[in-house]
């Protein structure tokens, strides 16, 4: 234990005296998080369901028109602007749609509600026996032209959008028709049977519709902060491969590792001392970067990182990531023959693992083939764990596979390092 503690203290002192190294370990990742989150924020916002901008002129201002407008406003897919434009309103609406300011323009024609009531009454009266045709007292009840809605589309509007708006309008229109029909029948029943119908305006849906996901997991799409903060934290943690590997090679080149080799029982405590030092560095990196996500990014107009209340899970996952990164640094340091080799190979390999692991481009945006490849990267295991915690509020059992993979990776790295050193010293 004393050797392990002495080794850890020694490596911490060396690290604290390497100012350039400290800037690289802590300053660079913070800058990366801020810059990349700002850069990617607009891209992530585009992934969210974008509301369709609609301009409406409601010339009706009665049940029909009001119901259509209120229905469209209540939908999360439409951003509705209602204008009471004058006689030239329609040409102005067309102009605004043509210019792209609005993708859709809707004109609800004047007296639409009145026309609808009249036509519904007419249809109902036509169903009654002739002797009851004057039940509503309208001698001159006749079918009038149908109420109308004119829909103007920007030519670039996708057909799926056109379909969705016409479907929505049909739905609301049908709802109004049914309501008016119900009102007319209520009046009829009152007239014919003396029945006073209650709650004619309380028209409930008769069919429940539920949207469900066909797959086993719900698909949660992270925002730019939820992706970039853990992503670049993981990237920074794995970048300790450069100083850690460099430290190991420097000891070898200076003869220190030869000296240590001759000292009985010093190998493992020395390696573990390095692992523990850089493990601590990784944990501090993670805490500081999560703090940036929580306190600094909102000041730049970005969403705040919500880490939930599963602090223990977050700590355990972060510890597993830090261990994996330290192990990787050790194996690179042991197997490289020079500082140049370790820094070039170390940095490029981390960049590649980050790229395929979903750090640069989130996994859900990759092709199917690349998603499979991505599952081989330790950085993917790490970011998957963070997604589970931040987006799905996962419990310990759910992140255990990620932690197990990361810890296993650490053990494999240490085992390979030990074996490689043994082979090299024997040869």
């Amino acid at each position, binding site marked *: 234990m004393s050797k392990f503690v002495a*080794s850890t203290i020694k490596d911490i002192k*060396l690290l604290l005296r390497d100012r350039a190294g400290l800037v690289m370990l802590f300053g660079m990742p913070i800058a990366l998080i801020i810059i990349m989150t700002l850069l990617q924020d607009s891209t992530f916002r585009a992934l969210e369901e974008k509301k369709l901008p609609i301009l409406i002129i409601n010339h009706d201002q009665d049940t029909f028109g009001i119901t259509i407008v209120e229905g469209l406003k209540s939908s999360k897919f439409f951003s509705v602007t209602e204008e009471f434009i004058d006689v030239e309103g329609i040409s102005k609406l067309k102009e605004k749609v043509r210019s792209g300011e609005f993708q859709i323009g809707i004109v609800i024609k004047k007296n639409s509600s009145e026309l609808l009531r009249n036509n519904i009454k007419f249809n109902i009266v036509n169903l009654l026996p002739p002797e009851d045709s004057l039940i509503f007292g309208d001698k001159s009840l006749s079918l009038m032209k149908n109420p109308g809605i004119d829909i103007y589309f920007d030519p670039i509007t996708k057909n799926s959008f056109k379909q969705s708006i016409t479907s929505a309008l049909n739905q609301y229109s049908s709802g109004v028709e049914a309501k008016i029909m119900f009102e007319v029948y209520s009046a009829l029943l009152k007239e014919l049977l003396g029945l006073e119908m209650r709650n004619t305006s309380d028209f409930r849906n008769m069919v429940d519709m539920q949207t469900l996901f066909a797959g086993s997991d719900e698909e949660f799409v992270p925002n730019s902060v939820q992706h970039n903060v853990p992503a670049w934290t993981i990237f920074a943690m794995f970048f300790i491969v450069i100083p850690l590997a460099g430290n190991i090679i420097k000891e070898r080149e200076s003869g220190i590792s030869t000296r240590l080799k*001759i000292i*009985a029982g010093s190998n493992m405590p020395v390696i573990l001392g390095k692992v523990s030092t850089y493990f601590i560095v990784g944990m501090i990196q993670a805490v500081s970067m999560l703090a940036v996500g929580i306190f600094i990014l909102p000041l730049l107009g970005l969403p705040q990182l919500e880490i939930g209340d599963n602090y223990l899970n977050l700590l355990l996952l972060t510890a597993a990531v830090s261990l994996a990164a330290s192990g990787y640094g050790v194996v690179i340091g042991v197997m490289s023959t020079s500082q140049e080799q370790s820094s070039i190979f170390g940095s490029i390999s981390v960049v590649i693992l980050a790229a395929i692991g979903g750090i640069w481009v989130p996994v859900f945006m990759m092709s199917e083939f690349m998603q499979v490849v991505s599952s081989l990267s330790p950085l993917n295991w790490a970011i998957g764990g963070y997604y589970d915690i931040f987006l799905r509020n996962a419990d310990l059992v759910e992140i255990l596979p990620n932690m197990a993979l990361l810890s296993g990776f650490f053990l494999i790295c240490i085992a390979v390092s030990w074996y490689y050193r043994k082979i090299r010293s*024997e040869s």
Partner: protein
Amino acid sequence: MSTAIHINSLTKRYKDTDTLAVDNINMEIPIGQMYGLLGPNGAGKTTTVSMLCSLLRPTSGKIDILGKELSLNLNEIRKLIGVVPQDIALYDNLTAIENLNFFGRMYGMKGNLLKERTNEFLKIFGLAEKSDQKISTYSGGMKRRINLITGILHMPEVLFLDEPTVGIDVQSRTVIMEYLMKLQKEGMTIVYTSHHMEEAEKYCSQIAIIDQGSIIEHGVPDELVKKHTGCANLEEIFLKLTGRKLRD
């Protein structure tokens, strides 16, 4: 037990080479002797010393240190030996005290023993006042002295030194060698390699001259001078036996 090191038919062939770096060496070094291992560049001195301090595995042969076979008692023997490498194997960004504390703990030393031993050695070698300065600020001579202290901090029974005085001034060299003599008189067995013939002649009880992996001469320096008529000192004997041709 009077023998510190016993080497029997020691041979070393490096991988993928035909030549033997060490070719069937036999050697016996009594306890409490300062033994010089001399030879031109590439003769096999460092390979021999590396095998003695368990850094390299022999191709064949047997090494006994303090009565124990090295290959079978590695950890036990490593606690009894010390090594002062030719490289300044210290952490540049740590102070002298920090280096000594670290290596002392690696040797298993702690507490007052480590503190007292460290302070004592720093005082002996004139480094006490600069012990809290980083090694990177030290002169060559100061680095060599700290390098030596690191090797003897745990007071080993057998000490191996590889060119301990290379590149330093006379004052530093004298301090180092005289202290090594003191340790030798106290019973430490010292094996050291050097290119400084006059140093070997002055301080070593016995020497061996190695060339092309084999011991070509060994004995007490004075007796060797008498033996090789026409040679006034060890350097002339060395040149006589190894030749004047430049080595790689």
